[in-house]
């Protein structure tokens, strides 16, 4: 069976869940081979988890250079493997770093790039959810290899014990004239709350929250539900909450099991980032707020009395 390459997403010796989703998806197309690009010793920490999720092979590309240059080491390693094993697909995380690797790899190998897929079948037909879920698009690469950027949180992870045979591959020497040098890397650590795009519950606040201090009402409810906290663009622009938590067309797209919108009117801009959520609950003072058009359950009322009461009710049931 053909090898399908999966670029492992890892931070500080931990595998990100997205990698397991990609291994699960890769199994539909062929035999998953995980590709670990990192500093010496990285693969040892990750091997067990990769094998438990279907990686028949693990290509180990380790060198100190992998953290000293921006995206080039990943592109170089994957390009060499594409040449060698002619995979029907290469799956890469769809974050900022991953998309850069994917776009460059597609150019380098002259392969079709399926960006931001939420699903793919055994025939390599990909599904995108675009314009914030307003449209579902089916597409495929017309080339022998498809470069796929995979949107995190799109698929149930399946465990599947596999061999996980490790093979060391070379990290080609980086051409410094063609690459940006990286220093002072500092990954953003999410704290105790789940990551916004991976959370199964999201509690978000909008302009109606009124101030940065008041966001503790949103956070309180989020913590009772083990949820991630989101914010509308209006709230972010007003300085109530940091930019990286923005949900909407110009922010993150989320699709959790439950989305609770507090004081969010529901402009298209915001709906585009959350309307594919399975269940939507909204609290807003304005009975005409457009958010109610897509909410499964809505309360017309003051979020400062409704949200704390809900937090208490959830606490009672915990």
């Amino acid at each position: 069976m053909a090898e399908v390459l999966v670029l492992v997403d890892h931070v500080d010796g931990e595998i990100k869940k997205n990698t397991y989703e990609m291994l699960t998806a890769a199994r539909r197309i062929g035999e998953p081979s995980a590709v670990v690009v990192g500093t010496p010793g990285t693969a040892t920490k990750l091997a067990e988890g990769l094998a438990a999720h279907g990686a028949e092979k693990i290509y180990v590309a380790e060198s100190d250079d992998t953290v000293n240059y921006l995206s080039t080491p990943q592109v170089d390693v994957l390009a060499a493997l594409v040449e060698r094993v002619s995979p029907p697909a290469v799956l890469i995380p769809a974050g900022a770093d991953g998309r850069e690797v994917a776009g460059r790899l597609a150019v380098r190998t002259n392969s079709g790039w399926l960006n931001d897929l939420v699903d793919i079948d055994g025939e390599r037909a990909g599904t995108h959810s675009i314009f914030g879920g307003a449209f579902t698009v089916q597409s495929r690469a017309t080339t022998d290899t498809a470069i796929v950027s995979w949107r995190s949180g799109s698929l149930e992870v399946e465990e599947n014990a596999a061999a996980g045979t490790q093979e060391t591959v070379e990290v080609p020497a980086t051409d410094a004239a063609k690459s940006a040098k990286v220093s002072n890397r500092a990954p953003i650590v999410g704290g105790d709350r789940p990551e916004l795009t991976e959370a199964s519950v999201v509690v978000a606040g909008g302009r109606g929250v009124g101030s940065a201090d008041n966001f503790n009402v949103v956070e309180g409810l989020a913590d009772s539900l083990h949820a991630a906290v989101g914010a509308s663009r209006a709230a972010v622009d007003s300085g109530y909450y940091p930019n990286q938590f923005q949900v909407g067309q110009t922010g993150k797209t989320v699709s959790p099991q439950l989305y609770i919108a507090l004081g969010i009117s529901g402009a298209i801009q915001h709906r585009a980032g959350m309307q594919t959520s399975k269940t939507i609950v909204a609290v807003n003072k304005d009975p005409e707020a457009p958010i109610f058009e897509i909410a499964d359950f809505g309360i017309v009322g003051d979020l400062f009395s409704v949200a704390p009461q809900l937090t208490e009710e959830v606490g009672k049931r915990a």
Partner: protein
Amino acid sequence: MNIVVLIKQVPDTWSERKLSDGDKTLDRASSDAVLDEINERAVEEALKIKEAGGAEVTILTAGPDRATDAIRKALSMGADKAVHVNDDAIHGSDAIATAKVLAKAIGTVGDVDLVLAGNEATDGRSGAMAGMLGELLGWPSLTHANELTVENGTAKAKRETDEGTSDLEASLPAVVSVGEKINEPRYPSFKGIMAAKKKPVTTLGIADLGLDASEVGLAGSLVQVDSFAPRPPKSGGQKVEDEGDGGAKIAEFLVGQKLI
């Protein structure tokens, strides 16, 4: 210093966006078109470099006739001239085909030191144009820059993404994509708007770039769109007035849905 700034006209994210039935591409006629906000920041950054040490700033875009509005806006902010690749053959190009067109067009501007672009357009959202251009041109790409300094043939940037921050450094020529926090773009002055009308805009077709129609557009794209469907509209569910028990009512609903 010779700087090229890439700009793109996109559908306004505050309006509804659609795809066209025929060739499954973005229906650009159905929504308001605006200069993508992030591009204004790229233009601003180029103008800052120009003001600090002298530079010629060329605006580059690939798009239909109406993209001239976006070009004029960038020129009215203070850019010197523009190149507009306008050819029906480009319609439907995927990200890679677009990158090929832009790379060739950059080649027409002369010895370019720096290419500036937004880090991600609000419509296509591939977020990788700078990286792809760097790959095609054989130049380093410094992406998601929230601070940029260019001196002595070197570009230094502070990079910030959702994944983390880092410092970047590369020799020129280079491609830089800017993030939302890099600056606050200026508003065009009345004088700037008047001056923009006289600034040169070179219009090029793909033949001028030495490209064949089979390399661009739907024909040259390595990805084919099979079908698309609007998502079934979600209808509102229950809406109740809070009578002091709103929180409890939501809790009941969530229990009913087995969500808590």
